[in-house]
């Protein structure tokens, strides 16, 4: 991790906000920069300068642009698939239906069961696909930043899950009944409730949604930093370092390649885990006893 501390200010890449964070493109930027440019990944990557409405609460920056583009992409794919949906599916429709079936059967069906889960299938589907799409933007060239890497989207998704499982629990048991079922789980010795109840309250109030949001965000941030590190080190080694060090560029490029594949896996896995945990939390609210 020694390259981390050598972050030299490199104003060039910031001129065109769309392309700054694209790791492969820093190759060009650094090459024509001062020559000492090693673009170290940092947290500022996630707070690019505004494009529109700077300073207002509608500030629109690169991350928002990525989100909008990915939204359009996601909706375009699914609207086209839905419009062309036929009784006998083609290859494209089969793939789309496989994704929808995966959510319906392997996530919701497995956790909640067919009957109880039917009501929540659309919600989990939307959550799964949103997370998946925005995660994948982390490895798409020229975007190279996951839409979920900025905490806002994970927080909103987690809030949605939070509201859903509270509403589900209250509708099923009533407000008092829901709290009682969660805070005072049966089969626990009475004195222990002093410890258990606050923990459980913290659990259903803060920890569940916060862990959902932070898990997703942290995974994406870490993935982005790893990718940027690998690719910017590659460009540094290949174009600016001493000839003897150029071989390292190949190594770091291989690392970056491997991490790109790994990020794809993580993107899908995080979407799966987010959907699964959302189903689990909703299901816990609906259970007869905790």
């Amino acid at each position, binding site marked *: 991790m020694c390259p*981390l*501390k050598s972050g030299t200010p490199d104003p060039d890449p910031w001129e065109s906000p769309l392309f700054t964070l694209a790791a492969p493109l820093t190759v060009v930027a650094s090459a024509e920069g001062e020559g000492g440019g090693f673009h170290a990944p940092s947290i500022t990557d996630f707070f690019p300068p505004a494009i529109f409405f700077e300073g207002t609460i509608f500030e629109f920056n690169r991350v928002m642009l990525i989100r909008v583009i990915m939204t359009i992409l996601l909706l375009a794919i699914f609207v086209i698939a839905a419009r062309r949906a036929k009784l006998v599916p083609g290859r494209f429709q089969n793939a789309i239906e496989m994704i929808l079936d995966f959510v319906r059967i392997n996530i919701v069906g*497995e*956790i909640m069961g067919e009957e109880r889960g039917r009501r929540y299938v659309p919600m989990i589907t939307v959550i799964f696909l949103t997370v998946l799409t925005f995660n994948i933007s982390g490895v798409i060239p020229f975007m190279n930043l996951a839409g979920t890497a900025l905490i806002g989207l994970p927080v909103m998704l987690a809030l949605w899950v939070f509201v859903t499982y509270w509403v589900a629990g209250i509708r099923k048991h009533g407000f008092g009944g829901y709290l009682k079922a969660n805070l005072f789980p049966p089969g626990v010795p009475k004195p222990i409730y002093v410890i258990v109840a606050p923990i459980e309250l913290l659990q259903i109030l803060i*920890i*569940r949604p*916060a*862990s959902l949001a*932070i*898990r997703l965000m*942290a995974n994406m941030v870490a993935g982005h930093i790893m990718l940027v590190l690998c690719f910017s080190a590659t460009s540094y080694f290949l174009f600016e370092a001493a000839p003897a060090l150029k071989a390292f560029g190949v190594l770091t490029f291989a690392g970056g390649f491997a991490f790109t594949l790994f990020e794809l896996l993580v993107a899908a896995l995080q979407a799966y*885990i987010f959907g*699964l*945990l959302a189903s*689990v939390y909703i299901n816990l609210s609906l259970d007869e006893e905790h």
Partner: protein
Amino acid sequence: MDVTTLAEVTGNIGTVGYGLAAIGPGIGLGILIGKTIEGMARQPEAAGQLRATMFLGVAFVELLALLGIVAGFLFV
């Protein structure tokens, strides 16, 4: 008095803190997932139930690592 600096490390001690915070959950996840796989191998028909429970447990354990991240940022 002259201080001879042999090696210098710059950066945030919070990073080290997070590294330490990740040890426990790492071990915990290993045990948790390993046991689940054992259970699945023993009773493949219960795989779905085991996987769901495992992820619930993973969420609990991972929470500690996530708290490590948060704490690292909070108490800089």
